[in-house]
């Protein structure tokens, strides 16, 4: 029988994959993908907890996370576009004007 822990562990693994992606990616677009992975991982956790507690709050949270992720994508891509126009690159290594 599949228990809550199963789902949560999957969620944890996916979250860590997302985190690893955030860490290793230097391309901003790909980096954004990784953040989406992290949020999706959390969504699985919420849905699973909601299911096992028989409580709707988790689904609510997941719902809002989806909304937030969508907004983030919009704003993030907007910023990426102005950045790309200015720099012509999405590589983080080219983006280190400010340091120290």
């Amino acid at each position, binding site marked *: 029988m599949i228990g809550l822990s199963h789902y949560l562990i999957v969620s944890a693994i996916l979250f860590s994959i997302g985190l690893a992606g955030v860490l290793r990616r230097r391309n901003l677009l790909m980096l954004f993908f990784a953040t989406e992975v992290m949020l999706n991982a959390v969504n699985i956790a919420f849905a699973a907890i909601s299911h096992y507690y028989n409580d709707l709050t988790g689904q609510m949270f997941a719902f809002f996370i989806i909304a937030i992720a969508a907004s983030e994508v919009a704003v993030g891509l907007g910023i990426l576009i102005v950045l790309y126009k200015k720099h012509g690159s999405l590589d*983080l*290594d080219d*983006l280190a004007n*400010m*340091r120290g």
Partner: protein
Amino acid sequence: MENLVYIALFAPFASSLFAALFGMSPKKQFVGIVASVLLGISLVASLMLAAYVYQTGNTIHVTMMDWISAGDLHIPFGFVVDQVSVTMMTVVTLVSTVVHIYSNGYMDHDKSFNRFFSYLSAFVFSMMVLVMSDNFAGLFIGWEGVGVCSWLLIGFWYHKPDVSREENPAISPSWAANEAFIMNRIADLGMLVGLFIIYWNVGSLQYDAVFASLPQMSGAILNAAALFLFIGAMGKSAQFPLHTWLTDAMEGPTPVSALIHAATMVTAGVFLVIRANPIFALTPEVSYFIAALGTFVAFFAASMALVNRDLKRIIAFSTLSQLGYMFAAAGLGAYWIALFHLAAHAFFKALLFLGAGNVMHAMDDELDIFKMGGLKKAMKWTYLYMGVASLALAGIPFFAGYFSKDAIIETAWNEGTLILWIILVVTAGMTAFYSFRQVFLTFEGDERYKTYGFHPHEMYKYVLIAMSPLAILAVIAGFFKEPFEHFVTQLLPEYEMSEHTEHLSWILGLIVLAFAVSGIALAYKKYYRGLKRDEKLESSWYYKMLANQYYIPNFYEEFISKPYAMISEAMWNKVDMKIVDATVDGIAKFLYKTGDGSRKMQTGNLSNYLNWMAVGAVMLLVVAALSAAVIG
């Protein structure tokens, strides 16, 4: 009578202020005259007080105002005129007056004439405070005051440059002045400690209160107090090992040497011991130490005088030696004899210095007696004065020194301190020798000065006349021994020779006299005809040692002054800058370096930032996991 006290005290002060008004102006003859007159007034007042005290046996005690009061300490400006202080007052004002008049002549070519009188009178005022004060703190005021005046006066010709020790053992007047001041300060610390001991055990610094409560004090405390007070006395009276400043102090103008470094200030130490005799009387160990040290210094200084070629330094050594005698007397309990010798010594030693001053005046400040000789033709009166003074110093009968010094030597016999007696007797012989060596080399024999192109001339008449009271006193002072004893022993403890001594006194006297006369005779034989230099003797180690003052000044320089300067330099450069300050700066630099190092985490690369963040989060998770494992 109170007014007289104040007149005696403040007339010199007024004189000083008056002269100070013109301190920066060119020479004004009237300054010297006014100063001398004011000093004369002080002398007269002192004499009147002396007469009053002598006749009535009363003492006068005045309190002018409060000085310091803090905690339980109350120090007034109080003055007491009793047998001891009035004696000192008389001696001080008398010698001072003479020296003031003398200075009118001696300093007449000096452009700082007015300043000189200001300092000189200030000194007299300080000295009067010293002797008249009714408490130890007041004494200390005067004590320091005379120190400063001595500093000012030794360094009077401050513009002279420093020279090497070979050229001038005192290096320069300003150097000598500083040396004197600092050496005195060393002793002053001892004196202060003595005061503190007294205060915390008595609760007061008034003489009468202190002396009244002595019986309740423990022996250790008394010993400590006596010892520290005596350390103070050692500085001012230039006792070994703090003696080197006195000979260097001869850099000052000669009247200063006469007044300060012979007659008055240097005897302050003796005065202190006499003043505080109730304390010393209760501390026989310290007293014996004083006597022994005094005897030692008497001999020690006389030995250095034997070979010295500097006119003033010889007299300075003799002063040192005579101070040793005084301490010997005081240490042996014969306070009144010490005081008597102090007074007598003041007269003939001042006379001797003033005579030396005449010679210097005549010889354009030349001091080397080897370059003199045969001055008697040009300076008959001076020769006479110096001869008389030397006779008195040598202890030839019927001169002042005979009575006083003999009594001291007799005391040493009387106390059964045979070694002290022997040394003192031998020293008496040496004293006679060097005194007359000096006199003969200066005034008799071939006229060596001619080869150096000097044109000696006699001092002004009025100066010579002014010196006459001293000369007279140097001759006759001894005859007042009986009344003097009677007078001062109203206050000071009586000192009676034992019958045995009394019995032998004429033999003892003869022995001393024999030594003195043979000293003179030796001097006569060797130097009367002129200077015959003995190369072999002069190159011998002991001659050199004596001529170099046992190398003590060199020792001080090598082992105290230079190391002090070196350590100071090291303290500054090594410790203060390299350790203390460098630590402070090091902390600041460390912080700055840390900042420089840690700003490297701010690479500007977002990926690194994300890594930092993840590292932070994961680290926190790890810590959480570990803590959870611990907490359970």
